[in-house]
């Protein structure tokens, strides 16, 4: 026995000399730990959870429902109420839950039938008549009628609480009437080319009329949510997941999967790992690196889709409010069209595509992405403003911008050509392009000072910038994206609300904008839209680099390879469509169903995991007790 040893612990290995003295203490510990564990289990059991109702078909056959699990990175669900939700994830979910009057085709995103199977407009273009299909029912069995459309639209127009999300689509509408069960008549103040692009989910009147303030209703309390889309929302756990079940009676046909789950992740790398292990079967928004790594994985295919967003920048044209007061302190040299043209000649879009995006960007200088084939414009040989630093230098020399001693040009009235450039600090590609901008413009004697910022909008507010990076997702109907470059959307006076993305004000452009807005002939409108892009291109305030590809990947052991319909059909995307085509058409892999349980852990794995944890904890604990019990207790 070494009870008398000082300083160092006992090395005796004799069994516990006095078990009676140690046991109460161990027991106390054990009871405490057990109580804590029980408390934790109790906590878990009280977690709210949806009541999963397996899709009817598989319930009958007794099979596990086939599940398509989509991993979504950092989504925000502001609200599931179609009258008020403005974030993109819930808006996308609404496309699955409810029908819209018209849809955008999978082929090329042009208008196609939705809840309305047919439509016509009067000669003056002021009255539109839509024929509502008679084979659509809500998930509670009620038929969908023209009254539901009229109710939805009128709520948005008349009820302040219902106006938040979608009122802009109906700005020009005088009245919406259900003239009979299957006919809706919309009267307009002015003719409008966007009457087949009203992105408003049609809600069931018989459910919503019972709600006092439709805009204040959460729509996330009682599941399933009554709708008539291809999917029915059955569960939502905030910041965790959204679950939808197939609507077997959908008029276009039932979806291929029984269940669709959106699972939320915070981190882009974590969601890639989740795809690798089959926790999810679809991810989108991949970086070039992630996509390249996944290309070599077994059972995973990468879908590279043409971009829906443009990446670009704007030059401060001398920001002004509508009342003529100037805003901020943009470099006056940028008001000179010659300087802007010179800058256009200094920009090398091919370098952006190859060296910044590794080829995963379609270089283009025009505003509407090529995926919208009818609207997209490309300059021909004579119109192109090509990468040509010599030409840029020539233009500036001729316009009287002489180089100073340090090589930086000075304008005829003495302003040094130093430009302050602000770039999104969280978009690595933009940061790289900003570096290129410094080099390109240095070549033509213009100095660029770059500041990364996470509040680019703040500089647009104040007008205190020369170069500002920008990017927008372009919808199938281009009206809105064109509107943000018109004179009319600038602030009425400094400090007021605005929609402009650039402070550009070009009367010729505005003229064309007004024309396309009321041009009801699609071909004639497309022609105007193309001219507007040429005007933007040559005006040089809004400079486009191109359209970054959309990179997504899915597991072919869950989703039949090639089954999800892309939009557009050629090189299109599956996630984030203007419609439900991708999820609706996706088929489970193999015959008769994919491995729907891929996203949940097998009982064996769970057992192994829990067992391992218990063994480690209990083992460590016992070891500790045993070691200290080796010496007896005497006092």
């Amino acid at each position, binding site marked *: *026995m070494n*009870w008398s*040893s000082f300083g160092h*612990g006992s090395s005796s290995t004799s069994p516990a000399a006095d078990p009676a003295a140690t046991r109460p203490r161990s027991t106390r510990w054990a009871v405490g730990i057990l109580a*804590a564990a029980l408390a*934790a289990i109790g906590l*878990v059991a009280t*977690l709210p959870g*949806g009541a*999963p109702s397996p899709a009817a078909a598989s319930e009958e056959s007794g099979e596990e429902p086939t599940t398509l699990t989509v991993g979504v990175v950092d989504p*925000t669900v*502001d*609200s*599931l*109420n179609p009258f008020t*939700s*403005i*974030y993109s994830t819930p808006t996308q979910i609404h496309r699955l839950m409810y029908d819209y009057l018209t849809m955008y085709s999978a082929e090329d995103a042009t208008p196609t039938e939705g809840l309305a199977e047919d439509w016509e407009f009067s000669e003056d273009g002021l009255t539109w008549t839509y024929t509502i299909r008679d084979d659509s029912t809500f998930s509670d069995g009620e038929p969908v009628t023209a009254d539901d459309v009229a109710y939805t639209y009128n709520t948005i127009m008349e009820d*302040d609480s219902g*106006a*938040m*999300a979608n009122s*802009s689509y109906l700005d020009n509408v005088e009245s919406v009437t259900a003239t009979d069960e299957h006919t809706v008549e919309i009267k307009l103040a002015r003719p409008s080319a966007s009457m087949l692009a009203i992105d408003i989910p049609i809600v069931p009147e018989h459910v919503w009329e019972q709600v006092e303030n439709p805009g204040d209703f*959460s729509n996330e309390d009682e599941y399933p949510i009554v709708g008539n889309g291809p999917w029915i929302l059955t569960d939502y*756990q*905030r*910041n*965790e997941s959204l*679950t939808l079940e197939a609507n077997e009676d959908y008029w276009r046909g039932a979806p291929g999967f029984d269940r669709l*789950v959106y*699972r*939320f992740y*915070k981190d882009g*790398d*974590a969601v890639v*790992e*989740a795809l*690798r*292990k089959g*926790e999810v079967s679809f991810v989108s928004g991949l970086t070039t690196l992630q996509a390249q790594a996944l290309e070599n994985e077994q059972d995973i295919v990468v879908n590279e889709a043409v971009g829906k967003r443009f990446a670009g920048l704007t030059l401060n044209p001398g920001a002004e409010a509508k009342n003529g007061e100037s805003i901020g302190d943009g470099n006056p040299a940028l008001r000179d069209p010659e300087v802007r043209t010179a800058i256009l000649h200094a920009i090398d879009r091919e370098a952006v595509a190859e060296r910044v995006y590794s080829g995963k960007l379609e270089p283009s200088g025009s505003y509407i992405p090529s995926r919208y084939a009818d609207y997209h414009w490309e300059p021909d040989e004579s119109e192109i403003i090509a990468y040509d630093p010599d030409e840029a230098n020539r233009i500036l020399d001729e316009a009287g911008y002489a180089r100073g001693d340090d090589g930086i040009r000075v304008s005829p009235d003495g302003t040094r050509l130093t430009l302050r450039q602000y770039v999104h600090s969280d978009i690595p590609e933009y940061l790289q392009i900003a570096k290129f901008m410094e080099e390109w413009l240095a070549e033509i004697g213009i100095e660029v000072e770059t500041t990364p*910022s*996470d*509040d680019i*909008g*703040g500089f647009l507010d104040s007008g205190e910038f020369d170069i500002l990076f920008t990017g927008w997702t372009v*919808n199938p109907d281009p009206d809105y994206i064109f509107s943000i470059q018109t004179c009319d959307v600038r602030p009425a006076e400094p400090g007021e*609300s605005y*929609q402009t993305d650039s402070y550009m004000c070009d009367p010729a452009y505005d003229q064309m904008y007004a024309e396309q807005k009321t041009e009801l002939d699609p071909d004639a409108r497309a022609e105007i839209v193309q001219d507007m892009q040429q005007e933007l291109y040559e005006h040089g305030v809004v400079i486009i680099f191109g359209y970054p590809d959309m990179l997504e990947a899915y597991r072919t052991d869950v989703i039949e390879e090639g089954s999800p319909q892309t939009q557009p059909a050629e090189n299109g995307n599956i996630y984030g469509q203007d419609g439900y085509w991708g999820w609706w058409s996706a088929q489970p892999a193999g015959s008769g169903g994919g491995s729907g349980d891929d*996203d*949940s*852990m097998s009982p064996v794995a*769970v*057992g192994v*995991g*829990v067992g391992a944890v218990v063994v480690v904890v209990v083992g460590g604990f016992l070891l500790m007790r045993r070691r200290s019990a080796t*010496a*007896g*207790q*005497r*006092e």
Partner: protein
Amino acid sequence: MGKTARYVVGRVLGAALSLLAVAFIGFFLFRVLPGDPVRTMTEDQAVSLEQLEALRAEFGLDQPLWQQFVDYVVQLAHLDLGTSFQYRGAESVAGLIGEKLLPTILLVGTATIISAVLGLWLGVRSGWRNGSVSDRVNTGVALTLWSVPTFWLGLMLIIVFAAGLGPIPDIFPAGGMRDPNVTGWALVPNVAMHMVLPVTTLVAVVYAQYLLVMRSSLLDEMGSDYLLTARAKGLRDAAVRRRHAVPNALLPTVTLIAIDLGGIVAGTILVESVFSWPGLGNMFYEALKVPDLPLIQGLFIFFSASVILMNLLADLVYPLLDPRVRR
């Protein structure tokens, strides 16, 4: 008696004052955050000028700052934390905090218990045999893990144990608190599996401080006369350690654990983010990006209040544990 009462009242008043200060700071601190909530929320969306203005009005952002402050104080006086900007489907900020408190407590509570037990146990062993090989290994490992960036460690664990690396199977989930549509008792093993990696990350990063505090306070006690006395009366080494040295050395760690319980709730932002854990830290991160002012303020007040209350608790419990403070 008077002395005890004065002590208690003094501590409670101090805590109340701190809370009040937090409530006031909370308003102004986050108003200086860059970013316009309405602009962030409508980014990339086709919204009209009328919609932008309606949103500003709904959020009260069209009011002058002093008016917003008065509204905030009146609200707070009614114990109302307001309504979140971005989670407009939720009733109130208080409701949101209530909803996400449970997942955070589950994660943080488990991690704190494990790190405290592990840290204190290793701390005692290290302190008692200070200078030995096991002491040096123990403290070395703990300090290394302590200095590892949480986010990186979490991601490494995901890559190795969630995705599987070489012979290591991919048994643990890559994120989340549970699989969708698992309910009832099946939740218990499911949530337990989801907890393993985040808890491991938290424990690895946190347990060192318990170890170090325990170790150093045990060292302080090592030379004490009462230990010599205990040994002199024939107690074995383990008994001297457990009955005499450890209880005395444990005192400083009580405060540490109490402060931690309050503070770690806020400190899990990184872990909750990398593991997509649907708790308060996760929500705080979401709120900062907008910035969702009512939600940030609410969470800030809540986090601060839990630290203040836990400190108060430690102050009040301490005299019960240590008779010397009472005198």
